[in-house]
């Protein structure tokens, strides 16, 4: 906690997380209940509560962060975003009615335009969150052009997709460089020193573990399938396509079984390795952050990240047991209501309502468990694993920057690309 004795700031130090897990649980559970009652409108209040909690309980060099954003700002940003998106959606709706090339391309164009807009929103939302982050009486802020960022992000995403993910580390590094180059704490400029190539080398074994089964499958297809015969079978038309495909390629069935098996292996690998990759990239990312002379080093342990997921699994299982105990009588009630001819439409509406509420409770429950275990742990682990040096710079930072609007947050919310 804050010490009254020290006049200057110690040159190096760590970050402490002071938040109590129980308080966070309470906040999330109340939020989930209110989300349901308000059909989601409460999300602006919940997001603000969560950020206030996380920021206020993160202590850097003896002083905690402060989040000053308000729910009404988020609500207003969302409404502005809706106002902007209505004509965009209406335009795509009309374009889709066109029979010519415009109509055929409208789907692709809509996808591309919304992709760019989503990345634009990501950058603007980051600006909003930074300018609402106060530390020692000064705010963070962000310069740079959100459109330029969006263009850069889309190009990188395309590269990542074309290279089956191999370009992803370079994408992270490039985008993070752009973000941090434009990030300031007061007049202290940020930068990013992480190297994409390093992350690439570290991540490569994991990439192979996931991609190899898929590559084997593609190889098997090329090797075994007689493409000419298959093409003939498909173009002949008629009802018995399946039997003709089988006739043209007797080995196809076994290749398909192999493909499914390999897809299963790849998915399992990806799920098992995901926490390790998350730990790797979090460590890499936070070690690359710079503010003036302030440098950071992360010693995040991979097994701690796995621990967070194990805790999630346990809590989720517990939640499932509770759901079963409550859910079975509810399902019986639904069956009785829907099957009763005399209950009529009223009974049916009640049954549908119960099913719907049950579904929403289940989905919200799992999301709450995930936020209270994995997300909170990642925040806490990520922060507490940091060692900061050059902190004496904190004694002489000057104020600059003004708060920005919450439009980016609103767009991100409407387009479903929001972060914390």
């Amino acid at each position, binding site marked *: 906690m804050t010490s009254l004795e020290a006049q200057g700031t110690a040159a190096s130090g760590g970050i402490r997380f002071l938040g109590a897990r129980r308080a966070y649980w309470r906040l999330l559970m109340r939020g989930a209940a209110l989300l349901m009652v308000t*059909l989601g409108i409460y999300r602006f209040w919940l997001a603000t509560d969560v950020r206030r909690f996380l920021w206020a309980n993160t202590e850097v060099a003896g002083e905690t962060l402060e989040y000053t954003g308000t729910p009404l700002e988020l609500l207003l940003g969302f409404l502005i975003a809706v106002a902007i998106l209505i004509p965009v959606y209406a335009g795509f709706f009309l374009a889709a009615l066109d029979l010519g090339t415009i109509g055929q391309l409208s789907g692709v164009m809509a996808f591309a335009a919304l992709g760019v807009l989503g990345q634009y929103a990501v950058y603007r939302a980051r600006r909003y969150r930074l300018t609402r982050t106060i530390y020692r*009486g000064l705010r963070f802020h962000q310069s740079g052009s959100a459109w330029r960022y969006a263009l850069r992000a889309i190009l990188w995403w395309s590269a990542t997709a074309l290279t089956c993910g191999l370009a992803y580390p370079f994408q992270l590094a490039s985008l993070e460089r752009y973000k941090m180059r434009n990030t300031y704490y007061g007049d202290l400029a940020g930068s990013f020193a992480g190297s994409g190539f390093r992350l690439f080398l570290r991540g490569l074994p994991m990439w192979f573990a996931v991609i190899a089964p898929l590559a084997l499958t593609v190889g098997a297809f090329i090797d075994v399938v007689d493409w000419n015969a298959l093409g003939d079978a498909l173009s002949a038309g008629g009802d018995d396509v399946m039997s003709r495909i089988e006739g043209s390629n007797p080995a196809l069935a076994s290749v398909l079984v192999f493909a499914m098996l390999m897809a299963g292996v790849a998915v399992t690998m990806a799920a098992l390795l995901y926490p390790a990759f998350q730990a790797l990239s979090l460590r890499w990312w936070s070690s690359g952050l710079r503010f003036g002379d302030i440098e950071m080093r992360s010693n995040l342990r991979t097994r701690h990240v796995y621990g967070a997921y194990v805790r999630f699994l346990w809590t989720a299982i517990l939640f499932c047991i509770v759901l079963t105990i409550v859910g079975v009588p509810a399902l019986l009630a639904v069956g009785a209501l829907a099957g009763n001819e005399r209950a009529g439409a009223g009974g049916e509406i009640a049954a549908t309502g119960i099913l719907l509420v049950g579904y929403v409770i289940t989905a919200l429950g799992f999301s709450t468990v995930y936020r209270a275990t994995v997300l909170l742990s990642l925040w806490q682990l990520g922060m507490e694993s940091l060692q900061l040096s050059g902190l004496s710079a904190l004694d002489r930072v000057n104020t600059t920057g003004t708060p920005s609007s919450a439009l980016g947050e609103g767009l991100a919310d409407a387009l479903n690309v929001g972060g914390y």
Partner: protein
Amino acid sequence: MTFGAGIYFDGRTSARHDATVTLAASGLQIAGRDGRLLAEWPYDEIEGLAAPDAVLRLGRRGSAPLERLEILDPQFAAAIDVRSSYVDRTGTQQRRQRASVIGWSVAATVSLLLVAYFGVPAIAERLAPLLPSVLERKLGDAVNMQVRGILDTRSAGAAFECGTADSEKPGRAALDKLVRRLETAAALPAPLRSFVVRRTEANAIALPGGQVYVFRGLIDKADNADEVVGVIAHEIGHVAHRDGTKAVLQAGGLSFLFGMLLGDFVGGGAVVVAAKTVLQSSYSREAEAAADAYGAELMNKAHGNARALASMLAKIGGATEPGMKILLDHPETKARIAAINRMAGARPTSPFLDAGEWTALKRICAG
């Protein structure tokens, strides 16, 4: 308790000032270690800010530099809380705000549902006739392409439409004859385009812009030409009411209302889909009942036998499964038949086709 320790940030630099805070009559006086006055905040300009539980963090309302004062001593913090109305340590103000959020969101939900149930169909009803027919035709062509993509399997190697081969021409002529008689009675603003298509289901559909597809399964199942005519009259009802266009407008309106304004929370997607399905089924049930009424009326006007539509429905309409009423897009068959029979006129009727023409129509897909 009028003195206490605090940590002060002046909002201009990040330097930390250990301060002595004095509770004066009208406000806080913040002085440095050396006794120099750093700031003076009137009580009504002080606000409490987000901080860890053990810390009271204060700021000055409306001040451009983000001045901050942190108090660690809980008793001294309580003394400040008492004097300043914008310091909300107990969370009373927050609770009040939360209650008003809940109240207004419930009001918003109710108004949304009312608009979805009454407003959206009413708007579609008023808007559909205003759409220029060029746009409606375009919409119809777009829908037509999709419908053909789904229905036209081309598996038998024959054309999707019947009535094109030489042996099918008499059937086509019979179809044209009965459609012409209906069309004259209906006096539609735009010409109809009707086809028999190679599908085995007993059904018929109307697309925006006046296209009617009669499935050959319907003709196979009909006992006489009037039963086919009855169903076509029902479909002309959809064309006259512009139901296809309305359905597109309604779907768009509902997607917008629910998808955009609500639904962006976990599990919300299911609520949106369920609400849309139930509401669209309810719109559709109304449209079907109206098309039945129109069809019966049109049969009366064309001196046809309106009861033929009812007897055809009795053959093709399935029984209602229990538990499916609110998801049904047609009203219950029994109720439809009763309603149509009530509307059927008592005047003598004349058949639409003679026996030879009816045989020709039955062979419209023979080629």
